[in-house]
């Protein structure tokens, strides 16, 4: 089998992303006007953030075949690590000079990703021994535990580190030297630079020997093991990578939104990530940006266009449509709307 070349499509995508960014920079709000409020820089930034999470999730679910129903927890851990260490740093006794330094948030982002990845590696080595459903269940439990711990101030209400239900406000913007990476049109480039790097990283993993081992793992765990792949360790590594990527996205989110609340990282958001992954196609790195953009656009469309036309119906129908969409996509396109290969159906079940 010849290796599919992923370089040219990636460059094309980078070019499109850059062109859109430059246009927005030159004419702020131009996109929103052209699309009648459907597409905004804000939406594209969130697409970039979810792309980062989804590349990791797709590697885990689509390639390694291991479900995660708690991925938002890692996203939240990154976001809260950044928010706590930049806003509440003084409570923790971090020197003021350090907190004021422009590179501190970047350092926190990197350290958080390492810590979250390490945490996932340890957890993963333990729980990824489990097969099939059980892993999904364990990640579900993990996601809810992390959410509750964030909501309950890490069990230390006197420090008020996470701010409980209300979360943390006033997360500073990212800076390079003295230059603030803001307004939003500038931040777009930051997020998408990371997102494109992550997509390249994902494609690199997929087209490496590791990627082949992963695909083999999805096909048959037993067969993969029998050709000498340490299946447990491989799964744990991919789990750790996906967690670290989610953490980076979380940090970028915290600096973008300037406020973080635990509800953004609960059980339902974890499910939304799975929906995006399923819509784009789990077994495809390209599915990550596509799935994120499709779902976000659809949500936006529902919110601003369709539901706005029906006065009696408020935003309440959003979850109904969302759930129904998930069901329909999984029923008719289980491999996602963009898929590079067919997901194998398991026979003999009813």
């Amino acid at each position: 089998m010849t290796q599919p070349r992923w370089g040219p499509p990636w460059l094309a995508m980078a070019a499109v992303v850059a062109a859109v960014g430059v246009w927005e920079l030159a004419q702020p709000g131009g996109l929103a006007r052209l699309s009648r409020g459907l597409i905004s820089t804000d939406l594209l930034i969130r697409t970039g953030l979810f792309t980062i999470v989804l590349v990791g999730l797709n590697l885990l679910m689509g390639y390694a075949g291991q479900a995660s129903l708690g991925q938002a927890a890692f996203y939240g851990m990154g976001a809260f690590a950044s928010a706590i260490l930049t806003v509440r740093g003084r409570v923790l006794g971090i020197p003021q000079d350090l907190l004021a330094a422009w590179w501190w948030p970047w350092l926190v982002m990197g350290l958080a990703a390492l810590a979250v990845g390490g945490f996932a590696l340890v957890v993963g080595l333990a729980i990824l021994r489990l097969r099939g459903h059980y892993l999904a269940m364990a990640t579900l439990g993990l996601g809810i535990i992390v959410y509750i711990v964030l909501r309950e101030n890490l069990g230390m209400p006197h420090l008020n580190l996470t701010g409980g239900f209300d979360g943390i406000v006033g997360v500073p913007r990212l800076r390079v030297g003295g230059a603030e990476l803001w307004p939003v049109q500038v931040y777009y480039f930051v997020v998408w630079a990371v997102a494109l790097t992550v997509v390249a990283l994902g494609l690199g993993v997929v087209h490496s020997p590791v990627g082949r081992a992963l695909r083999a793992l999805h096909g048959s765990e037993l067969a993969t093991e029998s050709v000498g792949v340490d299946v447990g360790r491989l799964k744990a590594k991919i789990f750790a990578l996906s967690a670290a990527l989610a953490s980076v996205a979380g940090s970028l989110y915290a600096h973008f939104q300037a406020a973080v609340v635990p509800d953004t990282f609960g059980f339902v958001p974890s499910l939304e990530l799975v929906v995006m992954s399923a819509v784009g196609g789990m077994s495809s790195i390209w599915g990550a940006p596509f799935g994120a953009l499709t779902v976000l656009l659809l949500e936006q469309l529902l919110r601003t266009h369709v539901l706005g036309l029906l006065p009696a119906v408020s935003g309440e129908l959003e979850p109904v449509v969302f759930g129904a969409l998930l069901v329909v996509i999984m029923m008719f396109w289980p491999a996602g709307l963009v898929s590079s290969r067919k997901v194998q159906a398991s026979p003999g079940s009813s």
Partner: protein
Amino acid sequence: MRSAAEPATTELAARTRRKPQEPFRAPPAARRVLPRIVRPAALAVVGAGLWLLGRRLGYGAPEYLQLLVDGTVTGSVYGLVAVGFVVVYRVTGVINFAQGAFVMLGPMLTITFLGGIGVTGGVPLAAAAATAVVVTAGIAMAVHRFTLHPARQASALTRIIITVGVYISLQGLALRAWGPRPYVMPAFSTLQMEDRLLQVGGVVVQAQSLWVWAVGVVTVLGLILFFERTVAGKAMRACAVNRTAARLMGIRVDRMATLAFGLAGILGAVAGIVLAPSTRPTYDMGLELGLKGFVAAIAGGLTNLPGAVGGGLVLGILESLWAGVTVAGFKDLFAFVMLILLLLARPQGWLEAGHQ
């Protein structure tokens, strides 16, 4: 017991590999001993932890007894929900996350059929509850027929995600129909909001708790009779043991799967209805109850009916003790910590009989 997810190829591979005397994927010595010591050890650690936390609050025997009795009430509800998971899993091999929605639909539909708390009497309440159970069962069967049945060839993960989507939709519809506010369900004994309190020794028991226990026992007995004595029940058990063989014997496996969803709907709705007077049902109550019922089912090994009931009781009691001695916000933590520990220590379930 071999779980349904384990393909037969493992056995084949185990027979064809080079050293046949060892089980495939031989666990290290430490892991083989672990399950045997882990159960009493874990219980001891949990017990000691709860006792230490309780001592801080000056708890004595009466307080613990009260928490324990309260725990058996929620535990019975968890058990019923868990049985719903098990019934569906055994026949279809799917973990049905929509189970929580059935739990929510039971009380919400009952209250709707009652037309608010104004008109109550024993007969209307019973009629409304019965109708709600039947309607929920119908919805559950429709869910299987129109979502999971067409996708029966898809992978287990795909089908699980489908049930998640069904849950989100049903909860969304509930929000649309009933709004976000909590509702009130009359207590079964007094037919009012206020329930009678019974004093037994030093323990206070709501009259509703007796209803929960009684309904729990009757439902489980009914289920056992169904599986042991009726043709449909036996056919369903056959599907659980071996789908292909059952099909060859002329059993309509897909119908049995729909029936299993109907049963799960009944169990979920009943659980929600008996619980509702002592909580205030809302459109999103299914998430928590569904997840906890699922933890109970896992504790029982996911394929074992008595195990699921036992798992529910154990979870309910431990959670009640934990909630009694810790900060309020951490109450829900227990079930999920237990879920992960259970999965790690003994994925095949703790309450299952030792036959492997």
